């Protein structure tokens, strides 16, 4: 029998429930209100008083209302059919909801129980398996979706029977497993898992050693993110966090992309599900939406479900990683999740940490980031979750708890600068402040040099150095005046500008410029390095600016033309002519 209780207090979406029964921390409960049941999560237990956060509006709720505890934590349903879906933070299928407006207390099934899938067995009868092992496979869009031994299964099992090849529905029995004590367990295509518990159905998690191609040049060339790596994008509003994440979700070389729209604008989600069905994944030729799942808990949706949304997204990612897939997980914005934690902690009158955030915020954030990673599965296959979150620092000031905590947890730092955004230098990633720790990993250096040429990493570091020296020259010029510095300073400054305009800046809304693969990035980097290493002859500083403007303009024309096309080659010829004009042989 499930535990029951009664509402005794209501402050916004914090509700106090009294019960004599057994309840667990983080247990889910349902509050009866009129003809609906409002879902809530236990966040504190004080004797018979249980504090719950309600994932819905509590308008009209009265004390005395009955509460039923569910006996489990917040969990997600895992099985074929998750791809291309639009879920809310609690994994309700938004498309199944009726009407234009969301109805409180309406919960919908995340999977389609009548949909049929083609099943192919992988294991043989008599084989022994553990949690996460692949029993068989069904086709989900173009992905081979593995039907696995449920993650909650402990110890070893013997496969008593496995269902034959054929067409089945998700709740059909696909295998029967026998445990050590001879007890039989039926396995369907569906399993459940509590979102706040990491899925650990893999053998080991090595340091990431490959680079994930994103098509965004400031990432790939200058600050590459590892496959299975972590990164974050802090920036004031309007600096380009969302545009950048959308670019990554469109272009990155991932098998599938999970996007958690956490407490941000609804129209940004609309943009994804309007455009993604029309856009093509360049690697498979399929519609982008086929590899995308959206967890939408926008800013006007219940605040408490924001926290749930990022965990739901992470758990789905872990599920697909265990199938041996390369998953890209994006969350926009993790600050909204932190704020939801703050709202609740304030309502509970907990002792606040810096800026009113809960004391354990750094631990919560680093635990979350640690769930990403590259893994070796039990069968030797590999899978990965690359996680990139955005952070929305109050007042654009990076010295605030969410940014600082995240900086400790994530390995790549893509700082968006207001100043760059103001002067429309997009993506506004600060070239000096930003970094990728992976560029220091020997295994990543080896990987990059093997794939992009033996001088790749040293060239990249050289380019970064040019940027730094350019900035220093710029400061000197500003202090001492154009004619107060040696001519060389102007050239150094402008060489940095070449890198800025030709590599760092990238027009996310141009069909061609928006995505650059590694082949093209290699080609362009060599061209640019030629210019950076060349000596140019100028008679006065006044000649420097127009010349480099011309040069930069030509690089931009190249970036706007299709790689290797006639237009590209003509632009390149013109570039060579311009370079010759002043290059000292």
């Amino acid at each position, binding site marked *: 029998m499930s535990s029951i209780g009664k509402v005794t207090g209501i402050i916004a979406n914090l509700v106090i429930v009294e019960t004599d029964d057994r309840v667990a921390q983080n247990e889910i409960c349902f509050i009866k209100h009129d003809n609906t049941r409002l879902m809530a999560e236990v966040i504190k237990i004080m004797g018979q008083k249980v504090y719950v956060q309600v994932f819905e509006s509590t308008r009209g709720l*009265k004390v005395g209302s009955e509460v039923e505890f569910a006996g489990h934590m917040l969990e997600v349903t895992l099985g074929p059919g998750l791809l291309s879906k*639009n879920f809310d933070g609690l994994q309700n299928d938004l498309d199944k909801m009726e009407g*234009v407006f969301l109805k409180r207390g309406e919960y919908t099934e995340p999977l389609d129980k009548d949909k049929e899938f083609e099943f192919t067995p992988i294991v043989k009868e008599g084989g022994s398996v553990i949690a996460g092992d692949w029993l068989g496979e069904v086709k989900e869009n173009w992905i081979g979706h593995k039907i696995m031994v449920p993650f909650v299964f402990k110890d070893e099992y013997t496969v008593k029977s496995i269902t034959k090849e054929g067409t089945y529905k998700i709740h059909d029995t696909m295998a029967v497993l026998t445990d050590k004590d001879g007890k039989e367990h039926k396995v369907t295509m569906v399993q459940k898992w509590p979102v706040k518990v990491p899925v650990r159905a893999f053998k080991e998690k090595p340091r990431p050693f490959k680079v994930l191609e994103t098509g965004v040049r400031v990432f790939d060339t200058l600050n590459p993110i590892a496959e299975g790596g972590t990164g974050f994008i802090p920036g004031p509003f309007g600096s380009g966090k969302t545009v950048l994440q959308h670019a990554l979700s469109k272009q990155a070389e991932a098998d599938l992309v999970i996007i958690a729209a956490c407490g941000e604008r609804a129209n940004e989600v609309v943009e994804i599900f309007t455009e993604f069905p029309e856009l093509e994944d360049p690697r498979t030729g399929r519609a982008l939406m086929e590899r995308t799942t959206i967890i939408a808990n926008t*800013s006007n949706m219940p605040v408490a479900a924001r926290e749930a949304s990022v965990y739901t997204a992470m758990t789905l990612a872990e599920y697909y990683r265990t199938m041996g897939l390369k998953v890209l997980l994006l969350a926009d914005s993790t600050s909204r999740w932190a704020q939801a934690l703050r709202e609740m902690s304030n309502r509970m009158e907990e002792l606040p940490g810096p800026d009113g955030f809960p004391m354990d915020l750094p631990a919560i954030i680093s635990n979350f980031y640690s769930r990403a990673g590259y893994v070796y599965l039990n069968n030797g296959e590999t899978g990965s979750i690359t996680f990139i979150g955005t952070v929305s620092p109050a007042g654009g000031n990076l010295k605030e708890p969410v940014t600082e905590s995240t900086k400790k947890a994530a390995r790549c730092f893509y700082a968006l600068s207001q100043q760059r955004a103001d002067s429309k230098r997009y993506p506004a990633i600060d070239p000096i402040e930003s970094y990728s720790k992976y560029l220091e990993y020997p295994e990543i250096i080896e990987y990059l040099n093997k794939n992009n040429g033996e001088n790749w990493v040293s060239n990249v570091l050289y380019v970064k150095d040019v940027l730094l020296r350019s900035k220093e020259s710029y400061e000197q010029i500003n202090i001492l005046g154009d004619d107060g510095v040696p001519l060389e300073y102007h050239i150094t400054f402008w060489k940095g500008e070449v890198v800025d305009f030709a590599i760092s800046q990238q027009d996310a809304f141009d069909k061609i410029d928006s995505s650059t693969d590694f082949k093209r990035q290699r080609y362009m980097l060599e061209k640019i390095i030629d210019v950076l290493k060349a000596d140019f002859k100028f008679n006065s500083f006044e000649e420097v600016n127009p010349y480099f403007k011309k040069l930069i303009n030509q690089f931009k024309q190249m970036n706007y033309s299709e790689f290797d096309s006639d237009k590209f080659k003509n632009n390149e010829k013109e570039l060579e002519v311009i370079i010759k004009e002043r290059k000292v042989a």
Partner: protein
Amino acid sequence: MEKDTKAFQRVYTKLFQLTKATVSLKASGIGNEELAIVDGRLAQVVKIMGDIVTLQVFAGTEGIATDAEVIFTGKAPTLKVGEDLAGRFFNAYGEPIDGGQIMGEEREIGGPSVNPVRRKQPSEFIATGIAGIDLNNALVTGQKIPFFADPDQPYNQVMAMVALRAEADKIILGGVGLTNDDYLYFKQVFDDAGALDRIVGFINTTENPPVERLLVPDMALAAAEYYAAEKNQKVLVLLTDLTLYADALSIVSNRMDQIPSKDSMPGSLYSDLARLYEKAVQFPDGGSITIIAVTSLSSGDITHAIPDNTGYITEGQLFLRKDSDIGKVIVDPFRSLSRLKQLVIGKKTREDHPQVMNAAVRLYADAANAKTKLENGFDLTDYDERTLEFAKAYSEKLLAIDVNIEVDQMLETAYELFSKNFSPVEVGLKKEFVDQYWKKDE
């Protein structure tokens, strides 16, 4: 103590705790957020602990005695909606200011959100004639965007102008702490334009209690939802000034002893503002709600919690400032942004629109650098001089809020200014645009 009058109404007469904004009493069967009338003043349930109910009294608790009559209404705040609303002005409680009654259906205000998958992507360009908006920060139906401006900027005038040119079916004015003069100004402008029958106003002036303001945006948006969702109309909602709304929020949270976060604002400020702004929507059946708001700044500080949280929520902001070089108010191209512009520019407008826009702003940024040089006492290069000349003309002919021209004309003007001061390479447009549109020397 308790007596039932009407079906749902319960009456109590024993208050045991009063603060400046709240009263508490023992009562049972009360719903969260339910409305009550305390000594004739409207109040709302904000907290229930066992049999103790705390009510927030919108007009303040001055003079309320411990034996005041409290009548619970059994419902959350509502507005009567119907065709009757058009052409009328209401107070924060949704009662006609000029007296009289409204026929219509009663709706809860602050109702549920639109399911994101039922929204349509906004795609209709709103032409305002103001190049600082149309050229650089094009607006789209279903968008939400505030003016960021110091109190001495003419934001209400610009907003009224935009509203009248926007071709909306309905204009809903939510006056949040509006001065009486500005209220009369809005009425006058709408009347002069013969637009009064398209206007609905919900007005809280500086003469009314500040906490009452909290109801105004929800009232305005409930009316907007009625027209947009049920009548499929294009609705423009004007909310001025939401800084005063946020101030009222902080008054309430402070009186309820909540821990303030940055700038004494409640920790829930982001969610509170998002709840309003996210009512902006494009419905699939053609109706839309566009929200243009005002967030007044203090000395241009956009890092303050109110504009900061607003900027994170809205789809851009229009930043007004006085350009001392030309002595006019301009829409600042650096601090302003319309995040939805790319849905229409170059698509609903000429293909070169995005590039022209960016190029002009970049040159304007160069001019700003040149200005800094000048101020620091350095010599200017020939290029610097030309950017300064360009910037002045750009400000005068395109950024000033008194500009009123079509988008094509804005683009032509931009090319004129480009070709007068720069070579195509310096401007850096795509070659095909230069070939097609660049002004050749006559």
